[in-house]
């Protein structure tokens, strides 16, 4: 391993390109929860010919785009606490009902960021172990949604791999990730490791292996 020597080159797909690839993989009519931060980009790239229904865990199904200045209602917010809108056919519910949708396996896909992912699908994305521990709905989402898509840079800002043999940080969930989208490549999670589904055209496989601590299956 040569973690510390890898450079943080802005290689591979841009964030928008990753978002677009995820958007392409959302089936028509699916119920999707987009995590706070990078995953919020995904909705912009959904093709016109399909309809996705967005869930926000604070009790909003059928969420629309962020509220324009003249649309702001501070009691119509998303899980990131930003003012949003609701689309026709949307609905409000209380927190126990909203998390029943999650825990009960009714959300088809949840897209989340990651600090670390292990080759068996463990996810760490809630705390570095320092500062105030704050989990929000992350543990419920990873345990409950049918598919967990991770959207992340392939390397940390220090150039270290995020796709590991085992996570070193406190886990959010065990064996929960089903797919990983990075700027370098897209992987499924199989019992034996990260199954390579697509690699960015500028990345060669040897470099990908060097940047990935966990086992890659071709």
């Amino acid at each position, binding site marked *: 391993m040569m973690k510390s020597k890898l450079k943080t080159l802005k290689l591979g797909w841009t964030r928008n390109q990753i978002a677009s690839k995820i958007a392409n993989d959302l089936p*028509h*009519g699916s*119920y999707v929860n987009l995590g706070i931060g990078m995953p919020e980009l995904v909705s912009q790239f959904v093709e016109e*010919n*399909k*309809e996705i*229904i967005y*869930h926000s865990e604070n009790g909003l*199904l*059928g969420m629309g785009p962020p509220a324009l200045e003249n649309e702001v209602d501070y009691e119509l917010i998303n899980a990131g606490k930003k003012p949003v809108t*609701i689309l*026709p*056919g*949307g*609905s*409000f*519910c209380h927190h*126990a009902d909203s*998390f*029943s*949708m*999650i*825990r*009960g*396996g*009714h*959300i088809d896909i949840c897209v989340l960021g990651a600090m670390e992912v292990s080759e068996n699908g463990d996810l760490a994305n809630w705390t570095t172990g320092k500062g105030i521990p704050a989990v929000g709905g992350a543990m419920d989402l990873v345990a*409950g949604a049918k598919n967990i898509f991770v959207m992340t840079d392939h390397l940390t800002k220090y150039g270290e791999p995020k796709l590991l043999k085992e996570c070193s940080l406190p886990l959010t969930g065990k064996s929960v990730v089903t797919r990983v989208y990075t700027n370098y490549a897209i992987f499924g999670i199989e019992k034996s490791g990260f199954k390579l589904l697509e690699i960015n055209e500028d990345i060669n496989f040897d470099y990908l292996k060097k940047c990935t601590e966990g086992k890659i299956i071709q």
Partner: protein
Amino acid sequence: MEVNKLINSINDAVSEVFDGSTIMIGGFGEAGSPVELIHALIDNGSRNLTIIANNAGNGRIGLGALIGQRQVNKVICSFARSHKSITFKEQYEKNEIELEVVPQGTLAERIRSAGAGIPGFYTATAVGTPLANGKESKMFDGKEYILEKALSADFAFVKAENADRYGNLSFNKTARNFNPIMCMAAKQTIVQVKNFIDVKETDPEKVITPGIFVDKIVEVKNPLIETHAIENGEVYP
């Protein structure tokens, strides 16, 4: 492309039901009972069914008729005894149909739990009674509770008042009963609805069952009224 869960034919709506299916049937008494969906299931002919419902059917229509057609092996319900419950009684007395009795609130909560991803919960209901036999118990703050497990199904048959293309539902008065929680607990939820409405008419504050819990909708504008049908001696098929 727009999401639209409306199915034109009621027979198509129940076409995926298979022999040996477990089916939740909404309703309390006749309120909210999806009689026309059950009749479509009689046409479909699937057998060896397990039915989860509050009651075991009245007369020779709806669930009473389904049982009469000998399509049902087992009923899980809270109250199978009624003077109008003919077909269940006939078969129960001859040991031809199985019954699992569940207290009504436990039945509701087991269904809701399945929908909410909770495999088991503790309740004081039935502690010290024959219905606690064989169940694990546990003390919380010095009081005894029994463990009850989630109850799920392959299909839920539900009756609603209004539905839009997403499957957002509202119900009529006490016809709400088991319907919303059964929508949550089945792999496939099939709804017969009196009024299929435009999505613009759906008020997001007033949706009772959000569309995420609904798979198929079929419009039945003038559903049979059980009291009248039984008074008239109606029989299905």
